[in-house]
């Protein structure tokens, strides 16, 4: 072999079509760590790994045969020490003196091979990451679509609710107007009736009293007591009509907002009270400094009713206390007695007009009193309520609204 070719810095190999090696240079032998052995005469597959033998049969050799050349073929060679050597091969088919031989040059590429491995690995990782990303994106897309769908559903629901709300508000307005009108009519009616009743009632009472005065000498005791009963009942009826009138009037008048000294007012009312015949007058305890902003006349009526009730339902006397205490987050006034009390079952019913719990004739009244109290409190923007223990007493609370507080 030509000395240059033998020592050129790449492997040189030539083999025949049947695979027999015709020539190999020293560089190749050194590469394969077979310096001491000859390659000529051996089959070229003997220096290939198994994988390379397959590739040689399926790609390398056919390519050489059909095209006459092969370039950048990656193969692995088996070295004499048994390790694998990755190489790059360029081959050409030549006709040398009538014989076809395949000339190859062989360049080792250990480092390149490692580098390629890295690149291939990175490429594979990237593909996997992309696949995962695509999957996540697909899932996100599905989620997004589901979310959009939900959003649309919610919007539809909202629209429905809006429409419903409008309808309801419309209905409420209608109802409220109807109720207001009905109430106004009722109040006007009550007022008119009460007003028209007063005259005749006054006449009945006064004529009874005049008659009684003029006939006191002539009539017998029983007849005189008949007249007494007549005027008594007339006055009672009058009082009822007055109460009714006041109750009805409450719906029609505006309320004042002035400072009212509740303690003073209570004391004033107490001074004018006398218990029913046969009952003891209770002792009174009025907290000082009770103030509120409201309608003085109405508040007087409210207090009168509550205090009168307290006295009326404490036939044994006891103590009536008037003051204010904190109830939850606000404070309320109260009128408390130690009288006969009532069953809490009726705690709300008692504030309705004409609802009387005690048919006992000891307890007279028109049945309008508490209803009036409730109405006055509510016209002030407040409320009334009561607690009680039968046999031990009752406490009536009232507030006169946020505007009522000083």
């Amino acid at each position: 072999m030509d000395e240059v070719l033998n020592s050129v810095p790449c492997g040189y190999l030539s083999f025949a079509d049947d695979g027999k090696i015709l020539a190999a240079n020293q560089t190749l032998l050194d590469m394969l760590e077979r310096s001491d052995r000859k390659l000529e005469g051996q089959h070229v597959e003997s220096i290939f790994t198994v994988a390379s033998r397959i590739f040689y049969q399926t790609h390398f050799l056919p390519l050489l045969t059909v095209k006459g050349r092969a370039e950048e073929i990656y193969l692995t060679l088996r070295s004499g020490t048994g390790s694998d050597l990755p190489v790059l091969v360029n081959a050409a088919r030549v006709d040398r003196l009538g014989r076809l031989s395949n000339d190859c040059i062989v360049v080792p590429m250990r480092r390149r091979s490692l580098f390629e491995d890295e690149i291939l690995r990175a490429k594979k990782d990237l593909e996997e990451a992309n696949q995962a990303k695509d999957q996540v994106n697909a899932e996100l897309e599905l989620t997004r679509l589901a979310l959009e769908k939900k959003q649309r559903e919610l919007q539809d629901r909202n629209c429905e609710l809006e429409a419903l709300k409008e309808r309801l508000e419309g209905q409420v307005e209608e109802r409220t107007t109807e109720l207001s009108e009905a109430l106004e009519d009722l109040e006007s009616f009550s007022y008119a009736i009460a007003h028209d009743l007063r005259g005749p009632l006054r006449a009945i009472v006064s004529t009874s009293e005049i008659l009684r005065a003029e006939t006191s000498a002539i009539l017998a005791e029983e007849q005189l007591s008949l007249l007494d009963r007549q005027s008594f009942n007339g006055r009672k009826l009058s009082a009822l009509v007055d109460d009714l009138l006041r109750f009805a009037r409450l719906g029609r008048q505006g309320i004042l907002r002035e400072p009212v000294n509740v303690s003073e007012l209570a004391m004033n009312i107490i001074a004018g009270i006398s218990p029913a015949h046969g009952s003891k007058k209770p002792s009174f305890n009025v907290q000082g400094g009770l103030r509120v902003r409201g309608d003085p006349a109405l508040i007087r009526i409210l207090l009168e009713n509550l205090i009168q009730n307290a006295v009326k339902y404490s036939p044994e006397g006891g103590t009536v206390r008037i003051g204010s205490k904190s109830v939850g987050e606000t404070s309320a006034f109260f009128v408390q007695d130690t009288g006969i009390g009532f069953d809490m079952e009726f705690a709300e019913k008692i504030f309705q007009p004409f609802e009387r719990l005690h048919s006992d004739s000891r307890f007279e009244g028109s049945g309008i009193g508490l209803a009036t109290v409730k109405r006055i409190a509510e016209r002030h923007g407040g409320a009334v309520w009561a607690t009680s223990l039968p046999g031990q007493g009752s406490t009536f609370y009232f507030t006169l609204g946020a505007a009522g507080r000083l």
Partner: protein
Amino acid sequence: MVFAHGFGCDQNMWRFITPAFEDDYRITLFDYVGSGGSDLRAYDPDRYSSLEGYAEDVLDVCEELDLKNVVFVGHSVSSVVGMLAAIKQPERFSRLILVGPSPCYINEPPHYVGGFNRADIEELLGMMDKNYIGWANFLAPAVMANPGRPELAGELRESFCSTDPVIARRFAEATFLSDYRSIVEKVPVPSLIMQCSEDIIAPLEVGDYLKLHLPQSTLAVMKATGHCPHMSHPEETIQIIRNYLAESRA
């Protein structure tokens, strides 16, 4: 006569054989999708991950050209492809000629010798990843869509033995990791097994195995060595095929 190339390279490998049969037969040559000059846009990784996909290619070609009484000549893995096609449409084929066939390449001790163990195949697959013969051509079909670059038209001709690493690797996997021994006995068409003397890819043991299990089969052991007798020993190849076909007609 339909010629199906095997793993590696394309229909050009039959160029030394087909002229001998042109007078007597309508010759059909094709490339599987993913090989040779095929349109890579038709490559479907799922379809071509198993040999059944390749059998479909064969049947599609026969259907398209309305071929009857087909003498199917298949090299290497195409022998199994031919068997699969014949099982699916037996009426289409008259003979199967199998060049260097093997139904399974991996040994199954203690009895079956396929020629390789799994590690060898893994190594081969790694090698497929690192060979880029004609790699640029696989970009060409996509680039061809750009009419402003006519100079690219010439490159497609260099397609023999192209190994787009991804497609080649998948073909290698479909070929070398598969085991089709179970279908061998179902082949309904008579066949010729052309066994090379020293073929590491389809060793003699495999030829014997096929003779035993392939119904109506004839085994011809060739003087040719290596895996591509139709390239390395075309005369012997032509002779054996001619004789077989003559006997079949008789």
